[in-house]
């Protein structure tokens, strides 16, 4: 073994010294910048607790804890079962309609949870069409049993079928990036299809599944629209109530701190249970596994199992919205909607682009220069994902407002004003980054973690520097993950409402704002038009998302074949992690 890089590989500290200074510094700066709003809110916890709200919080806290825990648990289990099962079925089996199922399973991503909640509440409440029809047919009187949609169970139902695509998507990406060789080995050694799934594929896909579940958990904690509409008292609704009915930022911050505590607990449990295990893809060309062919009843069952979740999370509410828009849609829709859609799209695209860059810097920093600072930075910037948008918004307003007053005289000389900081499109993109960077980061990190250090070692041994490795080895392998990250952030930003509502400039509206304006005035029918537009704008990136995941397996091996060949000869592998 006389490769020129081997000697230096052992002393990687020398190799990375410049980078080790730069990357952690970038990471720390990002962490500070993006956690500012959350920390601002957290800091108010230190202010003294007094006022009318104290007694109120004591009254309601047990219920908040209970509801939040049940909601998290219910949606967690629900999305785990639905998302992982669907991912396995469409990856490991071949049946008529499989390709269609792969695409359709992603569709609920395009629909904001609050719209699905509106639709189901309207459909299933006592005065809604379903119960009215039942009463008419069966001649029922008041008091018959029918599950209440505005309840904990209803919220679990809606959020499960809206959020399972996160688990499905990241699990499927993880399964696709696994070497099918291991599955085939498992089968030759006597495991059946489900045995292979449970004992081989699932454990290796764990980082992907965990990342998906983590996103789901944080979405649940941050959700306000659904739980409010369903009259479910969680921390998110409590934060609003204390903040706005009692006008107490300090009280709201205390409840928000509980929220953050929940997130930290969830993340910690997952990290601890993973222990010191690492999950890398074994070397070897990636090729399509030979899927097991299903036919007859089995194929039908598989297809139905894959079409049911998107029917519940997308088909039914989407159809109902479309019907409402047709019957009594927004009278203004032709005039202003092009502008609204343009605003919405530009904001989401800008956010997605910046988010991917920042996520790449952080994820790569954690890998290249692992240090407590870097790890902490990566976790801290993710907190915003679990914090309700309005809390982020006010967390931004306080420090930015202070800064605006400080800088106002200078800004005025430039023809601007302090308002450029507290209410502008720039502020909005910043708010979206604070909220959604975690979606990009966890996707990129999960992708990066599956690339074993041996590949890197091989390329280094062959004389490539770290940046060359990034461009020639990691980038092609990561393309799918990066694209996925961008699209996830894009659809999230597309649907964002609470922060947009508070931080946007004058005379600037988005589609979600239009939905809010009409829905807050109980004009659901008219709101459905703007809601459908959000779905329509979101469909394109969701379809792209599917293509990205689908193609990742086919293309990757071609471009990295050189690296692979090198790696096969490298014994023993140089370890950096």
């Amino acid at each position, binding site marked *: 073994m006389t490769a020129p890089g081997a000697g230096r590989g052992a002393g990687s500290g020398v190799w990375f010294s410049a980078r080790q200074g730069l990357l952690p510094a970038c990471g720390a700066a990002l962490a500070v910048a993006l956690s500012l709003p959350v920390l601002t809110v957290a800091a108010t916890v230190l202010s003294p607790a007094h006022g009318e709200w104290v007694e109120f919080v004591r009254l309601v806290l047990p219920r908040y804890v209970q509801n939040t825990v049940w909601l998290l648990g219910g949606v967690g289990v629900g999305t785990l079962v639905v998302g992982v099962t669907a991912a396995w079925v469409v990856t490991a089996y071949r049946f008529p309609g499989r390709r269609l199922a792969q695409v359709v399973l992603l569709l609920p991503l395009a629909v904001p949870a609050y719209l699905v909640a509106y639709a189901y509440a309207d459909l299933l409440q006592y005065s809604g069409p379903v119960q009215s029809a039942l009463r008419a047919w069966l001649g029922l009187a*008041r008091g018959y049993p029918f599950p209440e949609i505005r309840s904990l169970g209803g919220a679990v139902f809606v959020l499960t079928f809206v959020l399972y695509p996160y688990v499905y998507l990241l699990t499927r990406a993880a399964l696709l990036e696994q070497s099918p060789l291991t599955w085939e080995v498992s089968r030759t050694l006597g495991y059946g299809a489900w045995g292979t799934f449970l004992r081989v594929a699932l454990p290796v896909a764990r980082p992907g599944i965990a990342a998906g579940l983590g996103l789901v958990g944080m979405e649940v904690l941050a959700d306000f629209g659904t739980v409010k509409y369903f009259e479910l008292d969680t921390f998110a609704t409590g934060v609003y109530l204390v903040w706005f009915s009692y006008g107490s930022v300090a009280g709201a911050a205390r409840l928000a701190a509980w929220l953050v505590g929940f997130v930290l607990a969830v993340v910690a449990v997952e990290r601890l249970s993973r222990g010191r295990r690492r999950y890398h893809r074994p070397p070897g060309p990636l090729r399509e596994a030979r899927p097991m062919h299903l036919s007859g009843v089995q194929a039908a069952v598989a297809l139905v199992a894959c079409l049911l979740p998107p029917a519940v999370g997308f088909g039914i509410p989407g159809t109902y919205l479309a019907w409402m828009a047709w019957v009594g849609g927004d009278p203004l829709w032709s005039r202003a909607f092009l502008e609204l859609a343009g605003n919405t799209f530009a904001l989401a695209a800008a956010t997605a682009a910046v988010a991917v860059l920042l996520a790449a810097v952080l994820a790569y920093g954690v890998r290249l220069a692992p240090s407590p600072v870097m790890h902490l930075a990566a976790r801290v910037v993710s907190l915003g994902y679990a914090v309700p948008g309005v809390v982020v918004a006010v967390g931004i307003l306080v420090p930015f407002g202070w800064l605006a007053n400080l800088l106002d005289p200078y800004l005025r000389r430039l023809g601007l004003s302090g308002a450029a900081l507290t209410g502008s499109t720039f502020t909005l993109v910043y708010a979206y980054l604070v909220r959604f960077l975690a979606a990009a980061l966890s996707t990129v990190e999960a992708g990066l973690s599956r690339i074993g250090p041996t590949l890197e070692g091989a390329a280094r041994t062959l004389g490539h520097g770290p940046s060359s490795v990034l461009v020639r080895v990691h980038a092609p392998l990561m393309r799918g993950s990066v694209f996925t990250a961008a699209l996830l952030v894009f659809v999230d930003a597309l649907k964002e409402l609470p922060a947009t509502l508070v931080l946007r400039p004058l005379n600037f509206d988005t589609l979600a704002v239009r939905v809010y304006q009409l829905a807050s005035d109980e004009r659901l029918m008219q709101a459905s038009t703007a809601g459908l537009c959000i779905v329509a704008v979101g469909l394109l990136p969701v379809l792209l998302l599917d293509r990205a995941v689908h193609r990742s397996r086919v293309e990757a091996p071609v471009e990295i074949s050189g690296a692979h060949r090198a790696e096969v000869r490298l014994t023993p592998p140089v370890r950096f992690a």
Partner: protein
Amino acid sequence: MRSRLLSTLAVLVVFVVLPRSGAFGQARELNLYNGRHYDTDEAIYREFTRRTGVRVNLIQGDADQLIERIRAEGATSPADVLITVDAGRLYRAQQLGLCQRVDSPVLHTRIPAHLRDPQGHWFGFTKRYRVIAYARARVPRSMLSTYEDLSSSRWKGRLLVRSSSHVYNQSLVGALLAWHGESFVARWARGVVANLGRPPQGGDLDQLRAVAAGEGDVALVNHYYYLRLLNSPHPVDRAVAQQVGLFFPNQEPEERGVHVNLSGACVTSTSRNRQAAVAFLEFLSSDFAQEVFARGNFEFPAVRGIANPMAAVAPATLREDTLNAAVYAANGGKALQLMVAAGWR
């Protein structure tokens, strides 16, 4: 390569497409932070611009959050006028020092005393009555009397309300607090909860639809939701209105009258266009604006002598509670706590 392309794209978007800042605030412009979202109000803004040449810029949102924004923006706030759909938020804005006093003879003569802040910090421009909706087929009108009566056991299992977190309920119960005191309201709220036909849920329209569908027999709603159904282009909505009646409670001579909430506005304390802002508030009390309010959303004009086209829904000699809005607004937090303690979620 790809990441370089991405970063170029990002820089382009951030610096070329995006910079649309909220840097308004010139003399011929007026910035409204608006908690009202009725498309019909546009006519008022257009007419104001036509008459004065002052351009109106809008941000619509939740009034509570707009208040937080004005607060954070401090001296640099572009806001000139804050508009809300209830007295509670105006009261809060005033408590936070965000509203300035306006001594306008026009406003003081046209707006009745109970619909504005005694010191002139804010003014109500429309009246919104919180009334009892009832199922015509199952409730004889003679059975209905007062808000207080809704806690009586005759309504067991028949009463529908929305959540206590909504400010309309907080204001109503805040008024009850002012008239009867804490121990009465605590008892009353427990009685209401015991009478509920289902857990509190939905909005005011949902209560009306539930009464029509038979889920309950009486409900608390704001009057204009009923009028909206009555005038809806959709037959389904009109059918709901046909089955539901509207009752204005507390109308007996010894009673105080129906609870009235208001939609109003204040001039922000940091406004750079005070003159235009005051002119705008005065314009909101003009016959033109008052008629738009009444036609657009069926609210009752605050100014006396302006007709609501739907006035027939109310008794000819309507008695309204003249308790100042500032009083019940101040009681909102206490009211919420009493409701929640009684199990009114």
